[in-house]
């Protein structure tokens, strides 16, 4: 238990440092990669242990709040909620560890995250005047960039993991002969 918590503690710092100290400075389109979301999603997809991923999401989400322009707590709450919904989605719909499942989870997770974020941000703007106004077209372009970048990274991670462990499958359904 102690070692697991220590890994989560250090992992949170590492993810924040890599995201804001390294990935964000890369050239486009690599700068659109969100390493925090990718690590959370891929580690859940591989292990299926929601509790560890949730603890890491809580910790990294809390650290992320220091570097986030939005109201404190918004980003981490939305991160945890969308992770929870994605876990339920994985549990009931895309139950096997295949490439289409991973890509569907990625799409679902990011869509869920941005819809929840915009919804709560809109409430914060209207009700408490603390939200941020986003231009729809620019936000949408950013969303598409993020989906493409994370899909490419997840594809890479999937094939690397599959090459070494052979745990994952490339096809979703097996054809009956």
């Amino acid at each position, binding site marked *: 238990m102690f070692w697991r918590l220590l890994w989560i503690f250090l992992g949170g710092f590492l993810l924040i*440092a890599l995201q804001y100290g390294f990935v964000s400075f890369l050239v486009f389109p690599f700068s659109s990669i969100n390493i925090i979301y990718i690590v959370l999603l891929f580690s859940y997809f591989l292990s299926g242990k929601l509790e560890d991923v949730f603890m890491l999401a809580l910790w990294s989400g809390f650290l992320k709040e220091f570097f986030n322009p939005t109201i404190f707590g918004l980003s*981490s709450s939305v991160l945890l909620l969308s992770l929870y919904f994605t876990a339920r989605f994985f549990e009931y719909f895309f139950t096997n560890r295949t490439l289409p499942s991973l890509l569907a989870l990625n799409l679902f997770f990011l869509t869920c995250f941005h819809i929840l974020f915009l919804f709560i941000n809109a409430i914060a703007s209207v009700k408490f005047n603390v939200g941020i106004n986003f231009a729809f077209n620019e936000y949408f372009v950013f969303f598409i960039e993020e989906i493409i970048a994370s899909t490419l990274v997840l594809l890479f991670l999937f094939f690397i993991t599959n090459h070494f462990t052979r745990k994952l499958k490339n096809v979703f359904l097996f054809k009956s002969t």
Partner: protein
Amino acid sequence: MASRRVVYLTFIILFFLISSHFLGWIKYPEIFLNRISLNVSGSVRNYSQGVGNFFQRWTSTRGVYDENNKLRNQIADLLFNRSELEQLKAENDSLRAQLNFAKSKNKFTLANVTGKVNELSSNIIIIDKGSNYNIRNGKPVVANDGILIGKIIKVENNSSLVRLLSDSQNKIGGTVLNNDKTIGVVSGEYNLGLKLTMIPLTETVNPGDLLITSGLETDIPRGLLIGQIENVQKELYQPFQRADIKPAIDFSKISIVSVITE
């Protein structure tokens, strides 16, 4: 079942953390954690910058590598040293320019760029100075000889977030240095470039004209350089003209900035 319990517990902890933040109960642990993450992020940034410079040099002289196999190791060592020296030289130039700016009437605080936030369609940099150095929200941030790069949007005790001019949510008043002294609104476009909008149709703006801050905002003094007009789009059916601006500095290569505090 156990995982569901952990999930609920996580949400309760998050609720407690958010409430404690707004009530100020975890102020000191937050300062401590912020400082650690800032230092770790800054170290990763410095290291990656050094490695990036090294690879840039390495790729540019790869031909020399191929021709001089005997000197390969020696060249690699020299390149690494050169990349370090170039980084130091750039830092030195930047500090000298900041020093010239310091001789002006503004009071300022020097800060290092320790990170960058690209999430949520924003273009924000993280600097290592905060409210401890009299930095407040809305204060302008400049580089070199007074080139405006952005505004402070969030302040912690020992760090701040700067929204760059290229962020589409950043809007400030700008004056073109032409005969009409045209005033317009400067904003970012897709986090890549800058544009000047709301230019009256009757005024003449030419490519090459310099653009400075108008001073119409409370915290931003007049005269800070923003960039140069690149091209002007004038359509008779539009109520205003718009112009693309070439920024006076490359926003992606800023490592030291000054925050004008008074």
